[in-house]
């Protein structure tokens, strides 16, 4: 039996094994270091990544933006552009970047209201971007539809006349006459009423609500086509005569899906922005002056 230390026995010292392990470790280390050197963002490097056209103080200028600006400014593709055009675009981009960096150095965000406003808007957009990138599943959308069914209807329309009377007795007489089928003009003349002309033709519910006011609109929305309301006291005595009422009808999920997704996204954006603000406020050390606490 040999007294040479066994290659596979970890309890024994083996020079060859140590050498191989050290060499393997060195190779792996070199590969990792090389990968990191060529791909890491923010690493100081002399190489411009292929997706960029320049680095300004290690800040990349995107090739997509470069090609887009060539198209916008000169309506040419990269291959068809002249060196002069490319140089002009590149110089413009570099100029913008150095000015932006100088702006950061000068801390313009602390003093310039325009910069502050732009930064607030930009941060809001960043939080909205993440909300949009996350695609909701069909189950989530359907749950949203079920929870907000009243939002996903057709647009209700109404054509209604609003008559105004001096007192309740005149209004009551007009109601009886209108319900018996007498023409509105003669009823108004006989009872001293007038047409407010707030609604003169078919309107969407939202417009009728604005024109009639909440109280009259609520009464009108409940009326059937051809109906005449009881006298309603709302800044005068009113009687409504419904010419045509087409209430909103419920859309199925399939028919409303586009609007469901749109509404879901809007609410997701609102939530994301609220969460962002909550996070920022939580993280911030805010001290409030004693007199305003």
């Amino acid at each position: 039996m040999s007294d040479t230390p066994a290659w596979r026995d970890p309890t024994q010292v083996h020079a060859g094994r140590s050498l191989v392990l050290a060499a393997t470790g060195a190779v792996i280390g070199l590969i990792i270091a090389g990968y990191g050197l060529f791909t890491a963002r923010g690493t100081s490097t002399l190489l411009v990544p292929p997706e960029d056209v320049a680095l300004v103080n290690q800040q990349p200028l995107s090739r997509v933006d470069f090609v887009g600006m060539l198209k916008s400014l000169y309506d040419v593709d990269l291959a068809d552009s002249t060196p002069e055009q490319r140089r002009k675009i590149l110089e413009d981009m570099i100029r913008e970047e150095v000015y932006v960096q100088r702006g950061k150095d000068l801390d313009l965000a602390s003093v310039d209201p325009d910069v502050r406003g732009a930064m607030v808007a930009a941060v809001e957009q960043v939080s909205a971007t993440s909300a949009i990138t996350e695609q909701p599943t069909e189950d989530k959308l359907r749950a949203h539809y079920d929870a907000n069914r009243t939002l996903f209807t057709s647009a209700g329309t109404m054509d209604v006349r609003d008559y105004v009377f001096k007192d309740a007795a005149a209004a009551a007489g007009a109601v009886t006459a209108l319900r018996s089928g007498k023409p509105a003009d003669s009823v108004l003349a006989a009872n001293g009423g007038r047409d407010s002309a707030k609604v003169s033709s078919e309107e969407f519910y939202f417009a009728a609500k604005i024109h009639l006011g909440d109280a009259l609109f609520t009464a009108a929305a409940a009326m059937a086509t051809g109906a005449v309301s009881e006298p309603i006291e709302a800044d005068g005595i009113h009687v409504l005569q419904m010419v045509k009422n087409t209430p909103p009808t419920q859309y199925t999920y399939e028919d409303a899906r586009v609007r469901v997704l749109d509404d879901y996204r809007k609410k997701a954006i609102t939530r994301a922005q609220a969460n962002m603000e909550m996070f920022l406020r939580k993280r911030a050390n805010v001290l409030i002056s004693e007199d305003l606490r």
Partner: protein
Amino acid sequence: MMTKAHRTFRPIIFTALAAGVAAAIASLVWFNAYAAAGRLLTADPNAIPADRPAMRRAVTAGQAVYSRQCASCHAAGGQGSVALSTPALNDGDWLYGDGTPAEIERTVSYGIRSHHARSWHLTEMPGYIQATASGTHQIIPLTPSDIRDLTEYLMKLQGEPGDEQAAARGQTLFHISAGCWDCHARDAGGDRATGVPSLTDKIWLYGKGDRQSIFDSIAFGHAGVCPAWIDVLTPVEIRQVALYVYALSHPEDSGESK
């Protein structure tokens, strides 16, 4: 005659050599892929379709990216979805730009109304049955009869029979009070520079071009969204998927042999 030292170091040397060769091969493969990605990224995106081998590699890789990130909305073959109101990507009809690889790449990178500052977001179809139809433009709400008239006008533009008098009123609305012409152009042909669709080509993104869906589009408005993928995909993946999408409507440029 093999000495004791030979016997001891031979497996070590073989192992070290094997490890070295494996590392060298791995490095070569990685460097080759890195260099290919660099060539793809530094090339003019609009010129890549003419480079058949490069295009073939990009399209193959782009298809995988598309299946992962885009197919759930735009369908596996890029045919879009009426149910999801997502546009077809294989028909050569483009809302934004002329469908060049560079323009597609921009859309993939920054999205449409994605809230990314560089996304396409200049226009939005207002809903005309709101007191404030637009937050930025003074747009007067329309009445139900206005929208019916506009609908008739749009049906006429499609060559569909309908109420001629209503269509004439709708034409006046389109060109004057409703202000539709401002985005959709005087000839209703749309504007690819701002992503406004043509209303004359029988290609509908929302619904199937029937009266009810046109009425609802005018009434409720639309603002379709495509996410910005710039922070999700790598630059190479973005270019690959842009080239794949380009190839969907240009199969002759997909890099496959004729």
